[in-house]
């Protein structure tokens, strides 16, 4: 068996890469896909806290590379899901503690056993990014509808294409429907026009993400969260299913709001 190794990257920091990795991992595990998540952000590890596994780390990526432990021993099993594992980054080391070749070897070994290997890339385009992409054959780019984030995404797409990633996929995160409607935020089409890569999904801005991250639980488990629904859709698309893009008109339109105000006024 040979699984898919997918790097999740963005160029710009703070656009939601780690949240995407944690939720896609949980989503794939819920679909009974054996999945391992690699935190490639050495020195600034975060995937462990987003997943709520920070207290269970014994060994990390650098320990595996330096042969302080076997790869198996460094994998943390997420007990809430069958078949979800985390390979944490080292927190007290530098990016150059791992080389792209070593990273590629780890990915190769993991893909023999797992259906999915998702690599959480650090921000930037230097060593950490090069490590993160080294073992991957597919890429997901996360961006938000802001000039700086889309610009960086465009740079990353160029770098990925130069490195033979032919069909990177795009996730557009933190859309705010109300701002889009009043013309103060770029919409899916605007960004598609510029980046011109295949869209894997859109995720609305959702307070539930912060709440779930506070608790260390993936938002994909929250049935009432729009972001959770978006992640469930994206996971199914990764599995090859055709799922329509979610509507960005789920929050109330102005007429609906006026109507409600009117009704309330009449009653009160």
């Amino acid at each position, binding site marked *: 068996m040979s699984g898919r190794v997918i790097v999740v990257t963005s160029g710009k920091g703070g656009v939601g890469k780690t949240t995407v990795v944690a939720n896609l991992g949980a989503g794939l595990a819920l679909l009974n896909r054996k999945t391992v998540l690699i935190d490639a952000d050495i020195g600034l590890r975060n995937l462990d806290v987003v997943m709520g596994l920070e207290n269970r780390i014994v060994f990390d990526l650098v320990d595996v590379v330096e042969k302080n432990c076997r790869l198996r021993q460094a994998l943390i099993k997420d007990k809430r899901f069958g078949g979800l594992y985390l390979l944490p980054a080292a927190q007290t080391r530098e990016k150059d503690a791992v080389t792209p070749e070593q990273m590629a070897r780890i990915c190769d070994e993991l893909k023999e056993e797992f259906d999915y290997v998702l690599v959480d890339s650090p921000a930037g385009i230097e060593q950490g990014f090069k490590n993160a992409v080294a073992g991957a054959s597919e890429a997901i780019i996360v961006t938000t*509808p*802001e*000039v700086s984030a*889309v*610009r960086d995404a*465009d*740079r990353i797409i*160029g770098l990925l294409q130069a490195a033979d990633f032919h069909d990177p996929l795009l996730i557009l995160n933190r859309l705010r429907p109300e701002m*889009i409607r*009043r*013309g*103060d*935020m*770029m*919409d899916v089409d*605007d960004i598609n026009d*510029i980046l011109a890569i295949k869209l894997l999904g859109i995720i609305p801005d959702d307070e539930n993400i912060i709440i779930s991250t506070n608790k260390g639980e993936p938002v994909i488990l929250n049935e009432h969260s729009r972001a959770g629904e978006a992640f469930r859709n994206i996971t199914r698309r990764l599995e090859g299913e055709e799922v329509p893009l979610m509507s960005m008109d789920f929050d109330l339109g102005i007429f609906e709001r006026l109507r409600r105000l009117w009704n309330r006024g009449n009653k009160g």
Partner: protein
Amino acid sequence: MVFKKSIRETPPASKKQAVDRLRLVVVHDRSKIAPGLMEILKGEIINAISRYVEIDEEEMEIELNSTKNRVELVANMPIRSVRRV
């Protein structure tokens, strides 16, 4: 009500600015022309043109522009006078 709304000044929505700025910055990034290189290019164009016409260097503009699907080098050079060759 309708009247009031139409008379109130609403600021133009900012999305258009975002898209326009983004297009331009992405074009620059993709074309890989560094700012320094652009200055050299500008200098050489001025030299070449100046052999035939006198241009207003203060007022001239050279920039990369993006249309829907291509990048253009657009030069705008006010001519002061034509040299007799």
